[in-house]
Structures are given as structure tokens and as C-alpha cells.
């Protein structure tokens, strides 16, 4: 222990004597930490960086591979230590702490008009905190129904389209009709039930979080908020049309059963199509269907992937120019195809590659206009509410352990106590 103490004291003494270094040697170098992880996505990012470097000899971008695992802690440490990457890839629901903490640059005056107008206002809302914009939302994915196409076709049920989706009630009837003999109409992977429930509830007019005139947020579990939970609960506990075993599983865990013909449909993120293309048995026919619609139409919440600039970055203008380059419509398309997601940019969304029927691209692209910021996007205290109140309450409700009244009581009463602590 003494050695440990001595070593730390020595380090502290030495730390006081040394000074921070500079990174530049004449020309500007920007570090871009990307969280791209799929083969095609990493490739697309690296190619774009190479293309930038080839045409901008004075502003070199260094590609740094980041990791989704522990990214918040890693960035927080880097920010505190003044060593953050200049350009930061993250998700919009992770930005609030960094934005309010002053770690991210306000991009309001840095981004070109082209980029600002290309991305819809509703997407910008996901990265707007207070009066500033702290990230460029560039990729997003709706939740869709991945369906066994052969099973659906032979069952004779109406196949929904984005123009004429199933209602939540119709969805329930369809899954009931598809179930029986050890097979299920749907397998809900609800290991993380909160974001799926909240985001899909927008389609039924749910809002859950209500901001008062004083700016404070409270939870109200209204009729619209109950449609999705009630449907899932009924499928799993009353109709037996949803597999009870997958309620505690992640998305990938449901795929073997889906491929084996045990479930007709699996609600998953749009990007899961890549795994399905890789893993589906030869001859397995699948298709992408829109999630059911309700009073709010096909609306659903999303937390887009974002690109931000660190407040400590000494070359914010050049970093913003790189963002502009990276997010030009053709480049945004390359990034979207690499990640099997949708671009936020309206120009990029017009690209024919994103309108192919193959692999369900067209269905997903048709949903892009219905995507809204996730309800909890800017609610302070949401992570604690989610972990301590909403996750266990929803898990118990979906498993049939508690009823809808108890679920509502917990979400509202216990939830508001949590949120109040963050809003004093």
C-alpha cells in the first residue's frame, strides 16, 4: 500500500511540474472518434476520412475507433482531463449531461446553412439543449416489425404498409390469429422495456412526460400511454400470442426462434436487418413492416446518432467544415448504408439506394417523416427514473405480476419523486 501511496504522491508532484503539450506541428490535426462498429460502417467512415485528408492537406483528420461500451464514462474522463477528441460520435440521449456541463461546443453559428436546412427541425430538437445546439443528428432508426413473409402470406392476414399500417388493436388480432401449437404471432424482446415502450407509445398519442409552465417535468400515465403496454401485456398474458420467454431477452436473442419459425414477427430496430441478412437460413423469406399506428399515426420516438465538437477544440471552424463534408447528402447515404440505418438529411433520404424494396429499405425510409425525439430526450433525471422505477415496473407488468393500475401508480408517484429531485 505504501508503494501505491508513494507512487501516487510522486505522480502528483511530477504532475505539478509538467505542462500540457500541443498537438499541432504547423498544420491542424483533428481527432475524430467514431463509434461505427459494423464492417461496412467502419469502412465508410475510414474512406470518408481518407477522402477529406486527400483534399485538405492543411486540416488532417485522425480516425479514432471508439466503443459504444462505456462511451459516456470514457468521454466524461476525457472531457475532465482536457483530452477529449475534437469530433465526437455519440447518441443524442447521451448528450444532455455533456451539453449542460459545458463540454460540447454550441454549433449554432458554426454549421453551414445547407446542413441546417437539410436536417428537419424535429431532428435538431434531439440535440438542442437550452438555447444551444450541441450535436448534428445524422443517423436514426425506427422500430419496425420484422416478419416471416411466408407465414404471413399463407395465413391470409392483411399485410400492412406505411400508407395503411395495422392499428394496435388489429396488430393484437393478427398475432392472436397467427398463434397456436407452440408458435407465437410475436416475440417482444423487452430486456430494456422502457425506451421501446415510450418510443412506440408516441404512435398512440402517449407522451408520459409533461412540461409545465414553470419548465418542470412531471409524469402522467394517460390513456395514450397505456395502449402499447396494454397490448403487449394482453398478448403475453391473455391471448398467449406473444412468447413469454423473450420478454426478458435482447433483440439478437429472438432471432434463432424467428428463423426456426417459432415466431411470426419480431419488433426490432431497423438496423437489425444486417444480422438477419447474415444469419437467416437460406430460403428464409422475411420482410419489414411498419410498427402499428394509433391516434398519433406512425409517429415514434428515436434518439439519433450524433456528431459533436468538443468545447476545448481549438479549431472549431475546421471541425465544423469536416462535419459539413462528412454529412453531405451522398456521404450521409454511405454512412446510412454502412450502418443499415436511415439518414436524417432530407436530401440523403431521396437517394434511390434507400428506396429499394430489397431488405426492407423502402418501408423504413417511408417511416422517416414520422420519427420524433424520444420522449425522455431532455428530461433531467430520466436515467434514474428509467433504472429505478420504470424498468422494474414495466418488467413486472409485462410478466403479469402487477396490473395496469399499479404500473401507473409506480410510474407516476415513484417517478415524480425521482424527477423532483433533479428539478429543485
Amino acid at each position, binding site marked *: 500500500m505504501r508503494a501505491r501511496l508513494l507512487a501516487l504522491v510522486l505522480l502528483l508532484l511530477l*504532475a505539478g511540474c509538467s505542462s500540457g503539450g500541443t498537438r499541432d506541428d504547423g498544420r491542424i490535426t483533428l481527432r475524430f472518434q467514431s463509434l461505427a462498429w459494423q464492417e461496412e460502417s*467502419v469502412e465508410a467512415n475510414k474512406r470518408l476520412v481518407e477522402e477529406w485528408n486527400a483534399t485538405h492537406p492543411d486540416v488532417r483528420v485522425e480516425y479514432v*475507433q471508439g466503443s459504444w461500451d462505456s462511451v459516456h464514462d470514457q468521454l466524461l474522463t476525457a472531457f475532465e482531463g482536457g483530452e477529449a477528441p475534437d469530433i465526437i460520435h455519440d447518441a443524442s440521449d447521451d448528450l444532455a449531461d455533456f451539453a449542460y456541463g459545458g463540454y460540447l461546443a454550441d454549433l449554432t453559428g458554426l454549421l453551414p446553412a445547407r446542413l441546417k436546412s437539410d436536417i428537419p427541425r424535429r431532428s435538431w430538437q434531439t440535440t438542442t439543449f437550452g438555447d444551444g445546439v450541441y450535436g448534428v443528428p445524422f443517423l436514426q432508426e425506427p422500430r419496425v416489425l420484422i416478419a416471416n413473409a411466408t407465414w404471413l402470406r399463407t395465413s391470409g392476414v392483411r399485410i400492412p404498409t406505411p400508407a395503411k399500417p395495422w392499428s394496435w388493436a388489429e396488430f393484437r388480432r393478427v398475432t392472436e390469429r397467427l398463434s397456436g401449437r407452440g408458435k407465437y404471432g410475436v416475440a417482444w424482446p423487452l430486456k430494456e422495456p422502457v425506451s421501446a415502450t415510450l418510443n412506440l407509445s408516441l404512435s398512440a398519442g402517449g407522451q408520459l412526460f409533461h412540461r409545465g409552465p414553470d419548465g418542470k417535468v412531471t409524469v402522467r400515465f394517460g390513456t395514450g400511454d397505456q395502449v402499447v403496454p396494454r397490448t403487449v401485456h394482453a398478448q403475453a398474458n391473455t391471448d398467449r400470442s406473444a412468447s413469454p420467454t423473450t420478454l426478458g431477452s435482447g433483440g439478437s436473442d429472438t432471432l434463432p426462434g424467428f428463423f426456426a419459425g417459432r415466431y411470426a414477427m419480431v419488433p426490432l430496430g431497423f438496423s437489425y436487418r444486417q444480422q438477419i441478412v447474415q444469419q437467416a437460413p437460406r430460403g428464409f423469406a422475411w420482410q419489414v413492416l411498419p410498427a402499428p399506428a394509433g391516434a398519433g399515426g406512425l409517429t415514434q420516438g428515436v434518439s439519433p446518432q450524433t456528431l459533436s465538437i468538443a468545447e476545448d477544440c481549438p479549431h472549431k471552424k475546421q471541425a465544423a467544415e469536416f462535419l459539413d463534408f462528412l454529412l453531405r447528402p451522398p456521404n450521409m447515404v454511405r454512412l446510412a448504408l454502412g450502418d443499415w440505418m436511415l439518414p436524417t438529411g432530407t436530401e440523403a433520404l431521396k437517394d434511390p439506394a434507400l428506396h429499394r424494396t430489397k431488405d426492407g429499405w423502402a418501408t423504413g425510409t417511408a417511416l422517416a417523416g414520422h420519427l420524433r425525439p424520444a420522449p425522455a430526450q431532455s428530461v433531467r433525471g430520466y436515467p434514474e427514473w428509467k433504472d429505478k422505477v420504470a424498468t422494474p415496473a414495466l418488467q413486472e407488468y409485462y410478466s403479469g405480476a402487477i396490473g395496469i393500475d399499479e404500473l401507473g401508480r409506480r410510474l407516476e408517484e415513484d417517478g415524480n419523486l425521482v424527477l423532483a429531485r433533479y428539478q429543485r
Partner: protein
Amino acid sequence: MRTSTPARAGQYTALLAYLVFLAFPFLWLLSTAFKPPRELGSLHPTWIPEDPTLANFRQAFDEQPLLQAALNSLLAALAAAVIAVLIATPMAYVVARRRTRLAKAVTGWVVVSQAFPFVLLIIPLFLVLKNLRLINSVPGLVLVYVVWALPFALWMLAGYVRAVPPELEEAAAVDGAGRLRTLVSVTAPLLAPGIVATALFAFITAWNEFFFALVLLKTPEKQTLPVVLTHFIGAEGVADLGPLAAAAFLATLPSLVVFAIIQRRITGGMLTGAVKS
């Protein structure tokens, strides 16, 4: 004492079951590493891949600098193990032989210090290393690993030192050996199994460590294997399972090799002091 044949058969069966239980994750990892994507998505997975492939290994090596990462991990883990043992051994000797209140307090503090969560230490540590210009460097990481491994190494080695009878050192002194000669010729050889076991502990701890490496190392050529492995995992825990299994399988090999080489010494270390002479 003689054991009856049925009892012995029972013992072996229990041992075999335990070995299977322990080996299951590793064998499953091995099996997964050789499976093509379509077998990974099967509801009835088989132990032996029906259509074994090296594609996962190829993809893992193509996508990530695995060899460089393995080299960095090896360097960091070996250096941390050697330095930790070099520092901890004399300290352990003093703590074990000098039964003062200070020694007891140090031992107590060592145990308590293991309870500190990483996140409490990481920001001050990061600032210190930044000022030392040791961010994004393997030596910086080694320094952290040594500091991190020292308390437990000290505690572990102190136990081994206590197992060496002081009478042996006294006998050496009576025979005319000086303090240093006694330590080198009498105590050190007896401590060897303990030193090896401690080094192995420090090595494996450093080899598997993820969070410090994630935070302190930035550029791909400096990153260690646990960090590189997470590059096969996406948002919300979605994983590229085949290449991840292939890379994880390779990542377990050095630990297994090191353990296999020195396990006899560890066994010796465990038995030290078990029988009173």
C-alpha cells in the same frame, strides 16, 4: 487412508462434471468462433460446427489490429506483473516479519483499498498521467496497473512469507549468513511459488483490464485486446458474434498458456506450509 473403488469413481465423476462446467464457456466460445453466421442464428446450435469456417478469424483480423493489440496487452501485462512483484516482495517481507501496529494497519488498508470503484480514481489519475504525458502510452498504462495490483500482491505475498518458518532464517544466521545472503539463498527460493502465483495474478488482472485501457489509450495502435474486442459490439449490446468469438478465443490463449506453464509452481505455492515438518 484407502478409498474404495465406488468412492473413487464418484470422486472422478464429480471432478469430471466440475471440469465440464468450468470448460463450458471456453468450449462454447471455441465452437462459436468456427461457426458461419447462419449457424450462429440457429435455434438448435451444435457443439461441432456443421460447416466450420475460418471466416470469423479472417474478418476479426481484417477489421481490427488484433496482433498489435495482443502485443500491447502482453507488454502491459508482463511489465505490470514483473514490476508489481519486484516492489511487493520486499514490502511483503517487512509486513510479514515485523508484526507492528503499522504493519497490521497497512494490511487492513490494503483490503479496504480494493473496494474503491474505478470511476472514483479515474479522473484524478487521468489528470496526473496527462501532465506526465503518459496518456495514450503503454508505460502509462503499466504504471496504473502496477499501482492497482500492488495492494493485493502485497497481501498475497505477505501470506507466503508468513508460511516460511523464521527458524530457517535464524538457522542460516547461526551458520554465518548475513541478512542479504539469508534472503537470497534461503527465503527467496521458498517464496518462489508465491511469487509466481502473485505474478500470475497481476498478469491476468492486467491482461483482462478494460476500463483504464479504454480511457487512457486513444489511438488504435496503442489499444489493448479488451478494448479492441468491444469494437465488435454496437449500440444496445448488439454484437458481431462470429468475429467477436474468434477474437475473444484468441484473447484467452495467452492466459491459458501462461497458466499451463506455471501451474505446477502455483500448486507448490498453494501447498507451502500445509504440512508441518
